[in-house]
């Protein structure tokens, strides 16, 4: 019981509390903030604020109408309370819904014109906004071999997109990659056709709120038959205080196309919790494939649960065409509260959905996350692999739905969710919903909960590893299934994150 004993010692009086605090503080490497002049919309949420956001983004009238309708719906909705998360009531009038750096008032025409402070911010985060052979990792990019890989980056800072790299090169392949605000202006026909078609305006409380106030995010369109020539990524950074980030991402993979999209996010350490309510919609047509990977590393709050991001996110992919394929991979280490269920609507026959997740909660973090696999088409397949790791006083819940509709003949699902508890003050929960409405469908669900394997730990330590390294290795083995699904550079990234996140509990 070495791991547990260590935790108990740490939480007891014996250990130097100051050291522990410092250690946990050290663990979050992105807690610094950028000192930059900002302009804000007035605090609170009203139709005036929505008009202002729409105006700042120079949106057409139909977009404003769409937002206002969403706002009217939102007013009639109540916050969901079924998740196993507990947080103080959010005062939606006591925060800013729009914040942008003053220097972004006139959108820079090229990356060269972007405020150096902003460029430095992304440089520091490991996301240089330069068009060169770079590596996609959200951090530590310089440490990995950058051999001939290009990754296009859309960088979102608070409420605005700062810049998007490789746009011209992508355009040659017919790929549109830009901020959503730009897409609304430049490609209204695509946005109007697809926006809200996967996550309807009134889908849920937070999605409806997002529909009303979203300020920026990314837009991707991959034309028929095109394999996107490089990986696309968006990096979200919250910097301003008391400001919510409401990003909207829309990805359309037309017939026979392929894209791998990466998403990363961080925020400064602040005492007051901040809201992040995003919506991601993905449309996948016949024979197209989308890989969507996330390393979610929002500020988790301090060890007493002070501050941190409330991450209430709606992500959904619609496999509209036959043989469409979506793969969600997420590594969740940040956020004070996570409420997130990236889902797959398997509408096309033989379409496939996959969900690989590692959720690590530490200290006072709470995560309620999982997926929905809605099988509508025949011969659809889905696979869910979820690994939850809980340490400190954290609560980690897997919540998922597998639904086999009547017409989903010969559909298959396999679900495996495992939870690992480190220490005896934390919790791990599994809440799967399984609905099978046709007998040719086959559904299998397995779940286990266990503690870190003593024998494995002992073995590692007998080979000279210290406690912390040993636990990191055992946990990585436990998470291997998920990490292998990540694009290579993210896998390396994630393995570092696993070690970092466990530092607080075992070290």
């Amino acid at each position, binding site marked *: *019981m070495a791991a547990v004993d260590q935790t108990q010692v740490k939480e007891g009086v014996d250990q130097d509390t100051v050291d522990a605090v410092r250690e946990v503080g050290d663990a979050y490497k992105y807690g610094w903030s950028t000192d930059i002049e900002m302009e804000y919309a007035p605090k609170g949420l009203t139709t005036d604020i929505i008009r202002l956001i729409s105006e700042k983004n120079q949106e057409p009238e139909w977009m404003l109408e769409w937002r206002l309708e969403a706002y009217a719906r939102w007013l009639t909705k109540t916050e969901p309370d*079924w998740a*196993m998360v507990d947080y103080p009531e959010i005062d939606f009038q006591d925060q800013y819904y729009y914040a942008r750096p003053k220097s972004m008032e006139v959108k820079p025409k090229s990356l060269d014109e972007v405020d150096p402070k902003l460029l430095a911010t992304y440089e520091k985060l490991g996301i240089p906004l330069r068009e060169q052979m770079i590596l996609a990792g959200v951090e530590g990019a310089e440490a990995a071999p950058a051999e001939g890989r290009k990754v296009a980056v859309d960088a979102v800072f608070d409420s605005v997109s700062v810049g998007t790299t490789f746009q011209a090169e992508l355009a040659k392949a017919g790929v549109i990659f830009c901020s959503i605000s730009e897409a609304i202006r430049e490609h209204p026909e695509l946005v109007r056709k697809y926006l809200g078609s996967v996550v309807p305006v009134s889908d849920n409380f937070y999605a409806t709120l997002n529909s009303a106030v979203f300020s920026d995010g990314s837009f991707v369109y991959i034309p028929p038959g095109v394999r996107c020539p490089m990986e696309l990524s968006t990096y979200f950074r919250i910097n301003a205080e008391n400001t919510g980030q409401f990003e909207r991402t829309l990805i359309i993979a037309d017939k026979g196309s392929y894209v791998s999209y990466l998403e990363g996010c961080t925020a400064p350490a602040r005492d007051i919790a901040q809201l992040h309510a995003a919506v991601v919609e993905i449309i996948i047509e016949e024979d197209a494939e989308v890989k969507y990977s996330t390393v979610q590393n929002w500020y988790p709050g301090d060890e007493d649960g002070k501050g941190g991001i409330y991450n209430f996110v709606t992500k959904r992919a619609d496999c509209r065409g036959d043989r469409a394929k979506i793969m969600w991979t997420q590594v969740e280490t940040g956020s004070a509260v996570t409420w997130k269920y990236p889902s797959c609507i398997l509408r096309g026959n033989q379409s496939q959905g996959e969900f690989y997740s590692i959720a690590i909660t530490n200290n006072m973090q709470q995560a309620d996350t999982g997926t929905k696999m809605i099988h509508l088409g025949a011969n659809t397949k889905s696979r869910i692999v979820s690994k939850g790791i809980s340490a400190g006083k954290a609560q980690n819940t897997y919540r998922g739905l597998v639904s086999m509709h009547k017409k989903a003949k010969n559909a298959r699902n396999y679900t495996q969710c495992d939870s690992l508890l480190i220490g005896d003050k934390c919790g791990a929960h*599994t809440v799967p919903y399984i609905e*099978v409405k046709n007998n040719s469908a086959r559904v*299998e669900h397995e779940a286990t*909960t266990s503690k870190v394997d003593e024998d494995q730990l002992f073995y590692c330590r007998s080979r000279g590893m210290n406690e912390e390294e040993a636990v990191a290795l055992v946990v990585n083995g436990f998470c291997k299934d998920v990490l292998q699904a990540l694009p290579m550079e993210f896998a390396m990234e994630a393995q570092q994150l696993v070690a970092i996140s466990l530092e607080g509990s075992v070290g």
Partner: protein
Amino acid sequence: MALANPKQSATEARLTALTLPSGGWSEPARQDALLRLQAMGLPQRRDEYWKFTRPDTLLDSQAPTAAVFVNDDGRMFEAYDQINIVFVDGVFDADASDELVLEGVHVERLADIADKDIHWAKDLYGTLESKGQTPVERPFAALNTAFASDGVVIHVTGKPSKPVCLTYIHNSEVSDAILHNVVRVDEGAELTLLENGPAAARFNNVTEIDIADGGTLHFIRAHGRDHERRAVTHMFARLGEKSTFKAFTLTVNGVLTRNECVIELAGNDAFAHVAGACVGDGDFHHDDTVFITHDALNCESRQVFKKVLRNGATGVFQGKILVKAGAQKTDGYQISQALLLDGDSQFLAKPELEIYADDVICSHGSTTGAIDEEALYYLRSRGVPKSAATDLLTLAFLIEAVEEIDDKVIADTIVSRLESWLARR
């Protein structure tokens, strides 16, 4: 908190048809239960805990009509030496019942002891039910505690030589029976309790079970084959140190059955197994809702549920293992499986884990699918006709749950009954 209106009015409507029994030792418990019920209200269609099962017909102030099924199988467990207690549509049948005398156990009827001011059952009646209302509300159980018309109270003091059997006969199309049983198993004592029959057009049954340290209770229920009956049953069990509780429920047909099982492992090294097999045909809805709380060291719990569904039948399984902080060395296991014999039937499941202790092993599995085509092909290639091969595979599927019963004679009785039902199709 004030109840939403539909809930309140449904509850009030249901209560107008009922009269709260007064007097005797149970009066305070009944009054408390009524207050509990009024505070929580009867379930509505949108309640999360009733997501998969519509409570509507259980709420009506009059029980929906249910034709009496003429059963030519003979009574289940009939051949078994036992003390049999018979209720017809919820009313005790003295002529059909055995004398309630057996060494090692005191059996009394609730109605017989109702007027007494003091009775040992007072400590238990409504107590476990009340505790079982958190964290999830079970309003029909509170209704039962308040309004039960009869039932049995069983005090197990030794190891009786034969089982006690409760036989529930359904004989009226409009009967609405509410029976409440209380079982107390003393330290080191052991009993096998059998239950069989469809009971009534609508049946609400609660059994509260308190097993002291080292005690053992085997509880085997067989409900069926009555097509139109409706039933909502609850068993609440509290287990002391090194005690054992093994429950098995067989359900065959019935338009609506909701069986809730709420178990608290309160003493160290306790052992709880609950299993169920059900065969549903046509307009059949069967719901097993299980909530097991581990609140002590080194306990084991095991849930094994198998459902065979055909012709549009619906099976539901909501199972939960809650491991409280400090309940280290828990071993929790849960499996729910459904065999869908055609494209119209459905299985809805929510196998849940909630764990607050790190040194535990909890696993749950749930599978749904059709008959294994390869196994079927194999049997047919060996000359077994398709229907017989299907029955054989169906039986093999169900037997895994029946095998959870320790008593081989009882298990065999159930298997042979299943065999004849499957063959009769």
